[in-house]
């Protein structure tokens, strides 16, 4: 299985249920998260951050399937992936 996936797969299954947070001011633009992600979540910003790098951001967070590969591979502690907390109105049956 390749490490980096240039062709992103369509999002299925648990897509849309994940919060993906990138602390852009800490990103050093290594590109690992975008390359390792199997679906299409990340994209490059067009303006540099305070460190002088063009950081990554979650352009399409809704595509995230929760594989956690980006969290594991980020070398700068920038990424957090967690299940979205359900808003109170959606809990229980209607």
């Amino acid at each position, binding site marked *: 299985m390749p490490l980096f996936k240039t062709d992103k797969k369509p999002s299925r299954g648990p897509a849309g249920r994940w919060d993906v947070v990138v602390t852009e001011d800490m990103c050093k633009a290594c590109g*690992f998260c975008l390359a390792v992600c199997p679906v299409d979540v990340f994209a490059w910003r067009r303006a540099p951050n305070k460190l002088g790098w063009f950081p990554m951001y979650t352009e399409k967070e809704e595509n995230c399937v929760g594989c956690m590969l980006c*969290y594991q591979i*980020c070398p700068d*502690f920038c990424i957090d992936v967690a299940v979205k907390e359900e808003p109170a109105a959606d809990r229980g049956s209607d």
Partner: protein
Amino acid sequence: MNKLAQKYLRPSQIPTKACHGCGIGMIENWLLQAIDELGLKQEDVIFGTGIGCVGRQTFATWGGDNFGATHGRALAVATGLKLAQPDKKYLIVVGDGDAASIGTSHLIHAARRNLGVTVICEDNMGYESTGGQFSPTTPAGYVTNSSPYGMAEPSFDPCDVVKAAGATFVAETTATQWHQTVKIVKKALANDGFSFVHVRFPCNENFGAYALGTRDTLKNLEWIYEHTQGRKADGSETDFTWETGIKHDASNSRPEFSKIMRDMNERVRADMAAKAAAKSARA
């Protein structure tokens, strides 16, 4: 920053001084996962680091007590520190130069004594902090800043060295094996004895540039991945393959160094007390 970094690291030292695409931060993230999954608090763990990329980029990032020893001597300091503070978990995070070159003597004797620490030897296969000279773990024939005609000396695997010296837990992973590394570090920390975890990781600025011909972060991490799998992307074999996994697990099978010392003290003092009692009984 991610939640574990917030829980355990020193905010003023993050982002680290590591280059972009360097594996040091990745591995530290996995160490934090292992520490968190074991339920350890910041005050339960002491980080000891050295000199060189791994030592300096890791030093002071840990929010708890930590030391950055002189080059190669983190284990010598840990030998004394463990006697004074035996109940803490020690993560000695050092590079291939620090552990397997200048510090090999202390590595061997800490393993021999079964000192109760976990050494994370993060190996970027050269002295990258000083610009990319070769080290005892640089693969044969590779061109580096001080082997312009190709690495002529044979290299060795520090895992073999510590295993021969008596280490009770020896394992190897790479920078593309996150789950395995977290699991292995947890096992290593659970060993009350000398644990050695050897993690190969990419350097883009120096090893990548001079030995692999590129500073491209993706290409260099892919090189690590290929040499972990033994196969390149096109299916052909790599020039060598790293043997990863647990190489030796004799966890908790023999007494740990500081315990040996404490037990000896107890014996000596019990002996003294018995002699004193016998003397006063005779008087």
